[in-house]
C-alpha cells in the first residue's frame, strides 16, 4: 500500500503563522505525536503484506512442500485465466457488498425515522433496534443458521407454513440471500445509529417552520430530513462497505462459501485457498489481487471522504 507519505519533511512556516518559530515547533510536535501510531500501523499491516507479495510469486502448496520455488507470475496467470471460480467469486463479492450495504442503509433509515418521533416506549424500541449490532457476529450467524433458517425446526419456515406454504431450504436454495440477511440484520442498526445522529442534528426551528407552512409528515421527511441526511448516508455507505466486505464469520459459519462457490466472496476465497487447498502461492496472489482491487475502490471512496472533510471544514 503506497497511500502513506512519510511525514519526515522539513517543517516550513504555515501561511497563517502567528510567529514563525512557534509554528515551526508546532509542526515538529505534530509530527512527533503522529509517529508512534503511524509506525505501529505500518509495521503491523505492511509487514504481512510484503510477505504476501513475495509468496504470490512462489509455487508453494503445503501438500507438496518440496516443490516450492519462484515461478514469476504463474499464480496470477492461473487465477485470471484458468481458475474456474475466480470471476464468479468477484461477482459474488459485488452482489454481497452492494446488496448488504444498500439494504442496511434502507432499513437503517426506516429504523431511524421510526424512533425519531416521540411515542410511549421509544427508548425501549431504540434499544431493541440497536441490539443486533452488539451481538457477536459468530453468535448471530449460528443463531440464524439454526434457530431462524433451519428447514425443519427454524422459525422462518414455520411462519411460512402457518399460511399454508412450504418454505425453502434457505441455506441451499437461497444461500446468498440468507447470508446477506444476517449481515443486514447486524448492520442496519449501525446505519440507524449514524442516521439518527444525522436526524438529531436537524434544527427543530427548520422542522417547525415547515410545519407552520403546512408541510405534511411525508413532505417533511422527503424535503427536509432526506436531503440533510445525504452526508450521513454517504458516511454510512462508506463505513458499511469497509466493514461488510470483510465480513467472513457468517460465511464461515453458515455456508462455508457454498453450495459450490455460491457464497464465496474474495476474502473468503483467499482463506479457502490457504486453509483448505493449502495453496499458499495462489492464496497470496489472490490476496494481492484483492488488495489491488481494494486500492481502486479505496481511491474512489477516499475522494468521497475528501469532499466530506472539505465540507466539514467550510
Amino acid at each position: 500500500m503506497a497511500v502513506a507519505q512519510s511525514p519526515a519533511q522539513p517543517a516550513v512556516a504555515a501561511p497563517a503563522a502567528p510567529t514563525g518559530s512557534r509554528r515551526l515547533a508546532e509542526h515538529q510536535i505534530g509530527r512527533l505525536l503522529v509517529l508512534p501510531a503511524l509506525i505501529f500501523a505500518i509495521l503491523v499491516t505492511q509487514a504481512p503484506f510484503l510477505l504476501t507479495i513475495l509468496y504470490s510469486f512462489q509455487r508453494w502448496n503445503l501438500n507438496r512442500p518440496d516443490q516450492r520455488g519462484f515461478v514469476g507470475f504463474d499464480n496470477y496467470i492461473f487465477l485470471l485465466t484458468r481458475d474456474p471460480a475466480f470471476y464468479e467469486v468477484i461477482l459474488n463479492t459485488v452482489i454481497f457488498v452492494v446488496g448488504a450495504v444498500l439494504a442496511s442503509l434502507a432499513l437503517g433509515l426506516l429504523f431511524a425515522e421510526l424512533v425519531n418521533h416521540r411515542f410511549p416506549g421509544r427508548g425501549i424500541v431504540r434499544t431493541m433496534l440497536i441490539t443486533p449490532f452488539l451481538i457477536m457476529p459468530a453468535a448471530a450467524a449460528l443463531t440464524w443458521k439454526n434457530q431462524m433458517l433451519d428447514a425443519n425446526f427454524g422459525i422462518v419456515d414455520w411462519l411460512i407454513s402457518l399460511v399454508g406454504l412450504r418454505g425453502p431450504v434457505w441455506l441451499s436454495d437461497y444461500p446468498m440471500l440468507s447470508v446477506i440477511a444476517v449481515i443486514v440484520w447486524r448492520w442496519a442498526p449501525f446505519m440507524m445509529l449514524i442516521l439518527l445522529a444525522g436526524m438529531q442534528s436537524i434544527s427543530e426551528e427548520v422542522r417547525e417552520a415547515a410545519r407552520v407552512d403546512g408541510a405534511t409528515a411525508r413532505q417533511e421527511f422527503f424535503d427536509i430530513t432526506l436531503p440533510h441526511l445525504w452526508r450521513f448516508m454517504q458516511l454510512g455507505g462508506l463505513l458499511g462497505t469497509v466493514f461488510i466486505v470483510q465480513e467472513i464469520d457468517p460465511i464461515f459459519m453458515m455456508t462455508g462459501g457454498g453450495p459450490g462457490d455460491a457464497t464465496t466472496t474474495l476474502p473468503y476465497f483467499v482463506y479457502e485457498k490457504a486453509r483448505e487447498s493449502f495453496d499458499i502461492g495462489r492464496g497470496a496472489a489472490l490476496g494481492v489481487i484483492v488488495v489491488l482491487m481494494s486500492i481502486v475502490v479505496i481511491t474512489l471512496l477516499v475522494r468521497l471522504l475528501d469532499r466530506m472533510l472539505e465540507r466539514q471544514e467550510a
Partner: protein
Amino acid sequence: MATLPIRRAGRGVSRETASPLWAISAWIVGLIVFFPVLYMFLTGFKSENAAVELPPRLIFWPTFENYDAVFGINFVPFFRNSLVTSLVSTFFVMLLAIPCAYALALYRPKKWKDILFFFISTRFLPAAGVIVPLYVLFSPVGDPVLGVPGLGLLGTLQGLVILYTAMNLPIAVWMLRSFFEEVPRDILDAARVDGASLPREMFQIVLPMISPGLVATAFIAIIFAWNEFFLAYNLAPKESTVPMFMVRFVTSEGLFWAKLAASSTMAVIPIVLLGWIAQRQLVRGLSMGAVK
C-alpha cells in the same frame, strides 16, 4: 431491559407525540428485529428437545441444565482472556490514537490528510488476505526459506492484542480526530498565549472537553475486540477467547441448540449490556463528527 433517558432538550426529535399507529408500527418493527436475540436467550433455558419444538413456546418452565453443562467447562479462562485482550488492546489503541488524532486535528502536520487516509486504508485490507503471512510471522520459526524470522506469537494473547490494536487503531484515529476538531480554537489559542505546555494543554484542557468522545471510541474498540472471531480462531489456541468458548457447543451429532443458545447468551451479554448503557455515546461516536 434498560430504558434510557431520552428526554433530552429535544434537539431534532419531533416534540409532538407520534400517532398511535406510528407507535404500534415502531414497536412491531422493534420486536421483529429483537426477536432472534430474545429467542436465543429463551432457548438457553429450554431442554434440548423443547428447543426444536414447533410451534415454539415463549412461556415455559425454565431449566438450568444447559447452563450447568456450559459452566461444566471452565469458562473463566475464556472470559478472562477476552477481557484482557479487549481491554489491553483498547488501552494501546487509545495510547497511540489520542496523540496522533490530537496532532492531526490541532497541529495539522504536513500531509495530515494523507496520513489520515493511510490509517483508514489499513482498515480496508481483509484480514483473511494476510492470514497466512501472519501465521508465518507469528510462528516460532518464521520462514527459513526466505530468511524471515518468527516472532513466536502464535497461540498467544500478546499476538491477538497486537492485531486487535492494529484493527481498531484506524477507527479510533478517525473518530478521535473528529472529536478534537470540535474543540473551539479560541480556547486553545488562549491556553497557548498563556504559555501552557503541551501536556497541560492536552490533559487539563482538551481531553476533559472531549471525554464523551474518548468513552465512545473506547467502547467501539472494546466491542470489536470482544466480538472478533476470525483472527482468534486462526492464530490463537482453541482455549483463547469467548467466541472459541461459544463454538465448542456446535456438534455434528445430536441436539445442541439449547446449549449453544446458553453459551451464546453468555458470550454476548457483556457487550450487549455495555452497548445498552452507552447508547448515547454510540450514536455520537459513530456519527464521527459528521454532525457539525
